[in-house]
């Protein structure tokens, strides 16, 4: 086992994960806001924020899918060592990590009509994360918010599945934002 595998977890798991969860939860509760996510130093190409989300939410009960870009020995070993999460195909995953274009979004569980919560949460690594871009409306948003999104059509289709659907966390370096299935997304016309 390489030393990189053993390193980079939370220094104080109970406290670090409590603080990280608050950042994740408020981001999910208020789509559009961008929060810090710090405390983990995962191996590249995982961002700090993606590492924090994995450490905070994943364990042996949550199968994780990695796109080819993230499916490296280092990343696999790090996730296995720090969370115990099994690494699986997209269809079986509770969580997934990948860049937007690589995530097979039609393969993930979207829940069932009796259990819409049995759906995957995708951790989408993005190159930039800004409070400008697509227009967001829905629960958690007073009026409207804006957020840089990799596209809009896929999120509109996802919202149309409500109450089924996927939920997204966007991670960029040490920051994150979230887009639950309830958020209605509209592209802003470039003026």
């Amino acid at each position: 086992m390489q030393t990189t595998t053993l390193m980079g977890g939370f220094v104080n798991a109970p406290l670090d994960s409590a603080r990280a969860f608050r950042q994740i939860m408020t981001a999910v509760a208020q789509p559009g806001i961008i929060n810090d996510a710090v405390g983990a130093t995962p191996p590249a190409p995982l961002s700090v924020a993606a590492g924090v989300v994995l450490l905070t939410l994943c364990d042996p009960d949550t199968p994780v899918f990695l796109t080819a870009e993230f499916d490296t020995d280092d990343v696999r070993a790090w996730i296995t060592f720090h969370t115990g999460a099994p690494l699986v195909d997209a269809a079986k995953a509770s969580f997934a990590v990948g860049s937007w274009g690589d995530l097979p979004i039609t393969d993930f569980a979207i829940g069932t009509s009796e259990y819409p919560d049995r759906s995957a949460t995708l951790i989408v690594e993005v190159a930039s994360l800004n409070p400008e871009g697509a227009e967001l409306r829905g629960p958690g948003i007073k009026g409207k918010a804006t957020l840089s999104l990799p596209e809009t059509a896929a999120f509109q289709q996802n919202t149309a599945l409500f109450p089924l659907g996927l939920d997204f966390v966007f991670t960029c370096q040490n920051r994150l934002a979230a887009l639950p299935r309830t958020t209605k997304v509209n592209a802003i016309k470039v003026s």
Partner: protein
Amino acid sequence: MTDYNFAYLDEQTKRMIRRAILKGLAIPGYQVPFASREMPMPYGWGTGGVQVSAAVLTPDDTFKVIDQGADDTTNAVSIRRFFEKTAGVAVTEATVDASVIQTRHRIPEQDLRSDQILVYQVPIPEPLRFLEPSEVETRKMHSLEEYGLMHVKLYEDISQHGAIATAYAYPVKVEGRYVMDPSPIPKFDNPKLNMAGIQLFGAGREQRIYAVPPYTDVVSLDFDDYPFEASKADHACDLCGAEDSYLDELIVDDAGGRMFMCSDTDYCAGRRKAGCIGAQGVPYQEDVA
């Protein structure tokens, strides 16, 4: 309590609850099943709220607990002490100073901000339970958005009593989809469910967590000709004179004499501190206990 983990629960349990909370926020009003743990306090006494608070609290939080709107009711005291001991959090009775508020049966009078979290203790999370005792059936009804039974019940009330005979735990529809039990808050509090704060609901014995994100559309069920009405006792608070707060009724003498006072003790104290005096009130003194 150094033998126990931060906020009592082990990390795996907190992760499981945290995941349920996130799915709850993503599907407002839908009851997420979770593997409720046996807590060192009885089921029915706030174990769901306690588990949600344990999963949400950080060491930087300031925690407030109310039961019936009051900070000094025994069960509120007991839960506040539990988290003082196990999470080392700061505690407060002031609504404005609290970052996390656990409540049983009330929403504070003071409007909450978007950086505040309100955790409800829920006894029976299923709004259809008293119409249909079977969980298998009610789950099906939610999945099909089949809420006719609820409307029939409310309508029967009107035809029998001339009004909807539900005074607390008054059902709401969240974001136009799920019918939700707001916990046994008086219907006076229902309009406050549309708020800036994050609302999390925990039912320990029934193993359900649900949530309402800020600025979510929450509508109390009603009919065009019998619109929902948030009612309270037709009195002012006898201590602080407030006319806009929910009131407790006290029996004050053997002849059955009554007085009314704010159920939200912090709200009442705040008003009295600011110089408001009700019909039977006295000027505010810090040390009156």
